[in-house]
């Protein structure tokens, strides 16, 4: 399906004026008269028993209005699905940064002083700092009462796990894997690792909570307010309709703002003081105590026939879930994108084992395409290594194995989605893959495949006498252009100028909404916008919007509402081609050029889409080259943005994005999701290019100069360089 011409014109974002004048109000910008400031006492130990907490000195400090400890909230745990994270710890702390007490005071300085006056006596316990240790048969069990934890309702049940320190575990098989391996001409096995990395939305989390009559009012940076409401209701033992969650403008999410941890204790502080209580997370706490992308270790084994065609595949993936599984909203408590390795390829028989593991590290959570970047780094690096061993080019190996319509994929499901071979060919063409390159330069490829999200929401439209339409939705706009997407679908469907369509976000007092995430908004909210616009069109019965508006009396409006359930299965896809230069004396990698060939179906927001794809590329580039939330003894070493390095404008290479669309997306007008499509493939493409350039194979992200230098094959190293010790 081809969309209306309105969609071909660049959009002017609904939030453009307020964001370029400073008028947009983010949660930390809200004026809340009489608000107290909260601060928390955090554990310095990765694992310890709380012996005692002495708050007397803090309570007597002038300006302190409330002090709470774990004892005050004993038994209350929070989480998106499994509620295993204590609102405040009462018996044990499980990671450096776990909260033991909370203070509300007149100013942030007083709150900070009070925190220092609270003395906590701990008895140190030996910490489980790595996954292998945690999975030893005799390892201490980090959540001995885990069976009693609340598991929030939704699709799916809490998984059974083989070890009590598993958060989630899965073994999926299709085909006779062992027989298929037995038939393979050659079998290859490799292991890869990725570190924790942080979403690093530049707006730190913030929240304000107050009690108003029998209502609990929450303003939060959480990107899924209904989910936060439901979590709070479950944890705090309140009925859902007593809690109202609202947002300010959200300053970036990238998955991290799906988990909120402060709002729960802020409620208790607000109740104790009768005043609004707010907190704006210090960036150091943001980096060290919120839910980063899981570190992973992934082992892959693949059998190929004499022609290099994949006949059998298996994967073993471990994800370090840290102290709590609370950050994962999925029923299996996995980072689901990490389970099915070799996505996008024809895999006649496969076995995938994946697990998330409890350790005494900072808890893991969701981040832009959860699990996928780890998976794709392993899968696409593995393919390159296989190609080299087989003596064929990595591109040729991919061409032979890429899934075509109807081919069995790694899940056993037949492939339906974009033409992957065409994407690869186009990326190869645009990077000029056949051109000989001088020493120290190389190119690398990777494929990216991302499902299109599903779910249900309601959007209503109100046509007023002035001819304008207000669309009401429960979804926020964290920067992805969600509201402009709704505006343009409505305008396109009704054939009106987009400027006549406004979008208003409702709090949780409006109809249920799943929030932002899971590549959901384009099919789900876009679909609902389309359905609502079609419903309005029908109601107008052949009249134009302008005619219908003129016929309205004072105060009259035409209201329609559409609930839409997006159920169809679909994928967006992209092929990466990246050219690098490696300085072989130092190992330093410079990305010279990048091409991303994408199929995201019909474009709704051309400017916004470009931004999602370009931004996704750089997001992946950061993971490839720089980002590493390294821990030492359970403590995050890079606790500020001076040490946790994000790409800057001077670090990004020339990037060409090529659109190839079959126009068959399942979203409105044939659209597909784009936000989580591009970032997962970048690290593998860079790693593959680095090996092509200099022979260094880096199995562990990020691809630092030092790692590349250490992995240089002997002949590449200069024969008579300076002293290297």
């Amino acid at each position: 399906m081809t969309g209306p011409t309105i969609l071909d014109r660049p959009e002017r974002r609904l939030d453009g004026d307020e964001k370029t004048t400073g008028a947009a109000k983010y949660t930390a910008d809200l004026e809340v008269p009489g608000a107290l400031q909260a601060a928390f006492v955090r554990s310095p130990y990765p694992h310890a028993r709380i012996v005692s907490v002495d708050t007397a000195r803090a309570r007597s400090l002038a300006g302190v209005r409330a002090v709470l400890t774990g004892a005050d909230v004993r038994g209350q745990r929070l989480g998106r699905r499994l509620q295993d994270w204590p609102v405040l710890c009462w018996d044990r702390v499980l990671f450096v940064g776990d909260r033991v007490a909370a203070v509300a005071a007149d100013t942030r300085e007083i709150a900070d002083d009070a925190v220092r006056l609270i003395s906590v006596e701990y008895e140190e316990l030996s910490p489980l700092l790595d996954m292998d240790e945690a999975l030893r048969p005799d390892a201490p069990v980090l959540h001995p009462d885990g069976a009693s934890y609340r598991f929030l309702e939704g699709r799916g049940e809490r998984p059974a796990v083989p070890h009590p320190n598993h958060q989630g575990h899965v073994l999926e098989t299709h085909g006779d894997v062992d027989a298929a391996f037995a038939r393979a001409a050659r079998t290859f096995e490799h292991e890869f690792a990725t570190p924790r990395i942080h979403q690093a939305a530049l707006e730190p989390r913030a929240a304000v909570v107050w009690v108003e009559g029998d209502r609990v009012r929450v303003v939060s940076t959480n990107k899924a307010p209904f989910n936060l409401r439901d979590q709070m209701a479950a944890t705090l033992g309140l009925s859902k309709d007593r809690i109202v969650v609202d947002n300010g403008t959200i300053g970036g999410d990238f998955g991290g703002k799906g988990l909120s941890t402060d709002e729960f204790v802020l409620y208790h502080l607000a109740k104790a003081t009768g005043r609004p209580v707010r907190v704006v997370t210090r960036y150091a706490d943001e980096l060290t105590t919120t839910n980063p992308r899981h570190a992973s270790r992934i082992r892959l084994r693949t059998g190929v026939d004499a022609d290099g065609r994949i006949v059998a595949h298996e994967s073993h993936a471990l994800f370090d879930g840290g102290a709590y599984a609370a950050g994962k909203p999925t029923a299996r408590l996995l980072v689901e994108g990490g389970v099915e390795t070799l996505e996008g390829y024809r895999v006649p028989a496969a076995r995938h084992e994946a697990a998330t593991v409890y350790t005494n590290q900072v808890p893991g959570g969701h981040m832009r395409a959860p699990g996928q970047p780890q998976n794709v780094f392993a899968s696409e690096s593995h393919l390159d290594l296989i190609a080299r061993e087989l003596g064929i080019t990595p591109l040729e190996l991919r061409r032979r194995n890429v899934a075509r319509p109807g081919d069995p994929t790694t899940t056993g499901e037949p492939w339906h989605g974009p033409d992957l071979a065409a994407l690869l060919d186009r990326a190869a063409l645009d990077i000029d893959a056949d051109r000989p390159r001088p020493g120290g330069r190389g190119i690398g490829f990777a494929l990216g495949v991302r499902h299109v999200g599903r779910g249900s929401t309601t959007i209503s439209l109100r046509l007023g006498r002035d001819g304008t339409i207000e669309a009401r939705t429960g979804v926020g706009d964290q920067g992805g252009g969600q509201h402009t997407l709704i505006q343009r679908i409505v305008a396109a469907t009704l054939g009106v100028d987009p400027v006549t369509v406004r979008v208003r976000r409702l709090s949780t007092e409006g109809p249920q909404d799943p929030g932002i995430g899971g590549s959901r908004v384009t099919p789900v909210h876009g679909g609902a916008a389309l359905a609502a616009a079609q419903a309005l069109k029908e109601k107008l019965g052949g009249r134009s919007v302008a005619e219908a508006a003129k016929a309205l009396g004072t105060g009259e409006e035409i209201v329609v509402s559409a609930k839409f359930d997006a159920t169809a299965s679909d994928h967006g896809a992209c092929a990466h081609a990246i050219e690098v230069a490696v300085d072989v004396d130092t190992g330093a990698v410079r990305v010279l050029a990048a091409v991303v060939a994408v199929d995201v179906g019909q474009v709704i927001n051309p400017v916004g889409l470009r931004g999602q794809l370009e931004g996704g590329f750089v997001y992946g580039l950061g993971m490839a080259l720089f980002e590493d939330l390294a821990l030492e003894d359970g403590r995050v070493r890079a606790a500020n943005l001076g040490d946790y390095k994000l790409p800057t404008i001077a670090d990004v290479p020339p990037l060409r994005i090529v659109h190839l669309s079959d126009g068959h997306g399942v979203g409105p007008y044939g659209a597909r999701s784009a936000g989580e499509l591009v970032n997962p493939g970048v690290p593998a493409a860079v790693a593959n290019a680095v090996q092509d350039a200099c022979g260094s194979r880096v199995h562990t992200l990020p691809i630092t100069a030092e790692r590349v230098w250490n992995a240089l094959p002997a002949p590449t190293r200069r024969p008579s360089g300076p002293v290297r010790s």
Partner: protein
Amino acid sequence: MTQHRIRFTLNGAAVDLTVPAERLLVDLLRDDLGKTGTKDGCSVGVCGLCTVQVDGAPMSACLLLATQIDGAAIRTVEGLASPLQEAFISEGGFQCGICTSGQLMAADALLRVKPKATDAEIRDWQMGNLCRCTGYYGIERAIFKARDER
């Protein structure tokens, strides 16, 4: 502990007030003067969210004591009227918008002193303003456009 009378201009208007020694410029702007367009991000001068112009030069409001701007001319996004703003909208120079005020104040400072800044100079100048959304391409296009259309 000590209180200090400071006089400066904010977006052209004279301001005369008394602040405690430890007041940061970012807090003065946001909390005392209600100018919340200037954001507080990393709090260590790296991210650029709090970029304001001090006598025309871009600086981190999170690293300046209010006493240090006595006598200076301060410009924040609330006082900005520049073709950069429309260019950021049309070219995709922002998504979530949290870095946008800082990006704009930095870019405006450059184009005021160097209307024909080269692409490389623009990249070097904006290097201190992080953006996690756009990958910077839209920001580049916006600044180049505002420069070229001058």
